[in-house]
Each structure stands twice: as structure tokens, then as C-alpha cells.
């Protein structure tokens, strides 16, 4: 699903976020990207979503070379990927339902089908009863769950998450991770960037550590 081949990314400022990063994530897999702040975790995810382009190397998503995707095709490429942000990026001027509906409204779906999918997504994060509420009236954990519902509403094959538990306490963090786990169990490929080692020690999934701009495979913790 995701294949990085010797990928380098140097920003205009001169900072080199990635230098020769290579890894492969199979379809249906779930993995964590770890490493200290500034190690290039966000950059790696941005290269997947084509928010940034690599300065060298190749990024293949679903066997598609992203460097061959022209700028005007990027929106259609992004529709196949669900993105979860640390700060949720919810819009305060509309209710939970409309926030989750955003990725569906841009597409060709009919109103009734959109409603059905939004409710299904909200149901999966157990927030169906809040569809009419403003996201601002929800707790941080609930807001993040709305963000996840929005990412999965269009039923993408790949979900990437950048520090999705960054603002949450350990219990809520685990709850969020269990959600991702559930989506993974139904076949969604999931890649989560996090620096919360303690949290992912409780989960036994593949771990990739960013070190000096390269991806290093880490041993999986032994299961419970």
C-alpha cells in the first residue's frame, strides 16, 4: 500500500527532514511511526498525502508513483486517503454531522447516501447522538473521534494519523488507538505517527522509528 524508496526531503529552509528513507507497508497492515519531535514523522505523512513532494526518491501509494500525479489530480488522489490530525481541524461554524460530511460533499454521492455514510461513521466512533452538536461543545477526546469519523466517512483504503493522541490522557489515547485497531480489522491500512512509546507498548503492531532521516524497523513488543 505504501512503499518508500530512498526518499529524501529537504525544505527550502535547508532543513533535511528525510534522507534516504525506505520502508514498505502492506495492504491491510497497521504500523506506528515513532521518533522524537522534528524527526520527520509529519513530513513522511505529508509525502503520502501529497501535501509535500519528495526532493528525491520514490513514494508509491497503492502502486501509484506519486511524483507522476500532476497538481490538478492531487484532490482526487487525496480522496482515497483518510487523514487524522493532532488538532482535529474541525470547523467550528458547523455541526458534527456537517464536519463529517465534508469529504463526501465534494464527491458525486447523493444526499441520502451521504447521510447514511455520515451516520455510519459517527456510529463507529459512538458519537451518533452528537450529530447536531457543535464540535466546540465536545471534549477533546470526542473532537478527535469526530476527526476520525471524518477520515473514514469516505471509506478510504488508507488512513494516516499525525499524533492523533497528542492532546489526550492515557485512557482516552488507548480508546482512540482501539478505534484505529477496529478499522484495521476490517481491512483498512493504517499508519500512525506518534511519540507516545508508552502507549504503543501496550499494542503489538509494527513499529518504524525515524532516525537521522531514515526509517529503522524496531522489534515488536511481546504480546500480552
Amino acid at each position, binding site marked *: 500500500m505504501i512503499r518508500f524508496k530512498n526518499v529524501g526531503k529537504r525544505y527550502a529552509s535547508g532543513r533535511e527532514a528525510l534522507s534516504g528513507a525506505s520502508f514498505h507497508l502492506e495492504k491491510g497492515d497497521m504500523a506506528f511511526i515513532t521518533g522524537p519531535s522534528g524527526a520527520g514523522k509529519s513530513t513522511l505523512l*505529508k509525502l503520502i498525502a501529497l501535501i509535500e513532494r519528495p526532493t528525491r526518491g520514490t513514494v508509491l501509494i497503492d502502486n501509484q508513483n506519486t511524483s507522476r500525479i500532476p*497538481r490538478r489530480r492531487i484532490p482526487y488522489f487525496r480522496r482515497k486517503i483518510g487523514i487524522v490530525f493532532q488538532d482535529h481541524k474541525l470547523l467550528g461554524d458547523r455541526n458534527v454531522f456537517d464536519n463529517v460530511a465534508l469529504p463526501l460533499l465534494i464527491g458525486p454521492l447523493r444526499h441520502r447516501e451521504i447521510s447514511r455514510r455520515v451516520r455510519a461513521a459517527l456510529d463507529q466512533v459512538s458519537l451518533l447522538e452528537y450529530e447536531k452538536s457543535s464540535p466546540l461543545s465536545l471534549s477533546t477526546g470526542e473532537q478527535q473521534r469526530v476527526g476520525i469519523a471524518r477520515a473514514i466517512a469516505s471509506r478510504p483504503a488508507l488512513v494516516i494519523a499525525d499524533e492523533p493522541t497528542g492532546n489526550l490522557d492515557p485512557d482516552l489515547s488507548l480508546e482512540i488507538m482501539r478505534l484505529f485497531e477496529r478499522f484495521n480489522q476490517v481491512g483498512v491500512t493504517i499508519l500512525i505517527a506518534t511519540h507516545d512509546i508508552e502507549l504503543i507498548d501496550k499494542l503489538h503492531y509494527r513499529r518504524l522509528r525515524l532516525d537521522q532521516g531514515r526509517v529503522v524497523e524496531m522489534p515488536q513488543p511481546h504480546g500480552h
Partner: protein
Amino acid sequence: MNFISRYLALHYKNFISAFTRITEQPLGSLMTIVVIGIALALPAGLRVMVNNLSVMSESWDAAADFTIYLEMTVDEKNANELARNIEQRSDVDSAILIDRIEALAEFQSYSGFGEALEMLEANPLPHALVISPTDGPNSDLSELAMALEAMEETALVQLDTAWVERLRSILNLILRVVDIVTILLGFGVIVVIGNTIRLEINNRQNEIEVIKLVGGSNGYVRRPFLYSGFWYGFGGGIIAVFTIWVALSLVNSSATLLAQLYNSDYRLIGLSLKETLVLLGTGALLGWSGAAIATVRHLRDADPE
């Protein structure tokens, strides 16, 4: 078909929601719309004014006559003969003799110089002929004028409509100036709307970013702003039509009074239906263009790439 109907439904939704958004901030939007309205009303109003003047000047076309003042040596009999000869010409409709004695009497009673004229020993006025050309005043009368001038009995040929021609040239000049004003203010409208849309884009930066990240195309992101521009321009057009209507109503009574003094029942001409539609359409088009320019420039700023 399905695709088209959904596409149209999306446009319709944007069209309505852009209008709703404008009405959500009534004061700010109204100020923008009034500024646009004034900018549109100025050139349109000037055009209405020039239009009225040229229609008025057309009603004076009937007076496109020549007056020939004959030499003092020409007597009444010769003058009559001359008039009949001139009437034979194909380009002359009629030639009427104004007898010098009648002319003096008329002059005495109307000019206010009556007593002074009585002191003259002899009648200083010559016989005169008033020639009405067959063709209207817009046709080329120079050939006829030259022929009349060439006659040995002619002392002076005067084209009575020369001042109408001068007025027309002035109106043409004004029209050119109005054209320039129109273009400048059109640019002004584009800039005002462009700036308003730029502020709107800044206010909705978060929304634009999220829509782009979930895969909204630039076209999808732009569309609501284009419709906002459309509504601003269209609203400005309505204000302009209204402003011109009010201005005409204010001027109308004095204009009617003036026309009565000239024995005319002339009424001011306002915007025709077509002109009204053109004004509204121009406003909407300028609004759309201003928004298009602003979105191209500023949506790129919001591009996460």
C-alpha cells in the same frame, strides 16, 4: 444526465449559500454593495444623460434648413423667380421667400429695436429664402450649400442647424469620456470585489485548508467565492438601477418645466428594460471576474503543497 443534474444541484446550492452568507453580515455586505452600486451608477447615469440630450437634439432635426440672404440689388420679382427655380432641384423640398418688407415689420415688432429701425431711411434687410432640403440634416448638404453659394444673387448662405451639429460633436466627445469613466470604474468594481473576496478567503482559511486536505478540488473551493462575487456585483447593479431611477425622478419635474418653456412635451428617458438588464448583468459579470482574480491569487496561498 444524472451527473449533470447533480452538478447543477451543486451549483444551485453554492448559488443560494453564497447569498445566505452575504446576508449574514448585512452591514458590511451592504457597504460593499453600495460602493459597487455607486461605481456602476455613475457611468450608467452619464449615459442616460447623454442619451436624453441626443434624443432631444434629434427632434431639432426638422430645423435643418438653409437661409439664403440675397443681394440688395435683387427685387421681389427676381427673388420669387429664384425661389421657384431652386424648388425645381431634386434635393430641395421647398424654398420660401421671406419678403424684406415683411421681415422688417416682423423684426420691428419682435426685436425691441422698433423705434431705432424707424429712424432708418431705407429698409436695411435683403430678401431672404428659406430652403428645406429633401434629405434630413444627417445627409451631406455641402453640395447643395455650394450650389446655393455659387448663385450670383446670393449674399450669404446660413445653415441653421450648424449648432445642432456642434452639440452632436460635443455629445460624441462626452460619450468618449463616459467610455473611459466606464472602464475605470469597471476596474474599480473588480478591485473592490476582489478585495472583499480576499478578506472572505482569509476568514475561511481553515475551511479551505480542510476541504483541500479531504480532496476538494480547486474548482470546488473556488465556486462559493465566485458566487459571492456574483451576488455582490448583482446587488451593486440593483443599487445602481435604483440610484438612477431616484436621480431621474428628482430631475424630472424641472426638466418637464424646461421643456414646456420650449413648447415641447419632452419627457426624460430612463433606463430601458434592455439597459437595466445590461447594467445588472455587467455588475454580476464584474463581480464574478473580481472574485475569479482574487481566488486564483489567494487560493494558491492556502494550498498546503
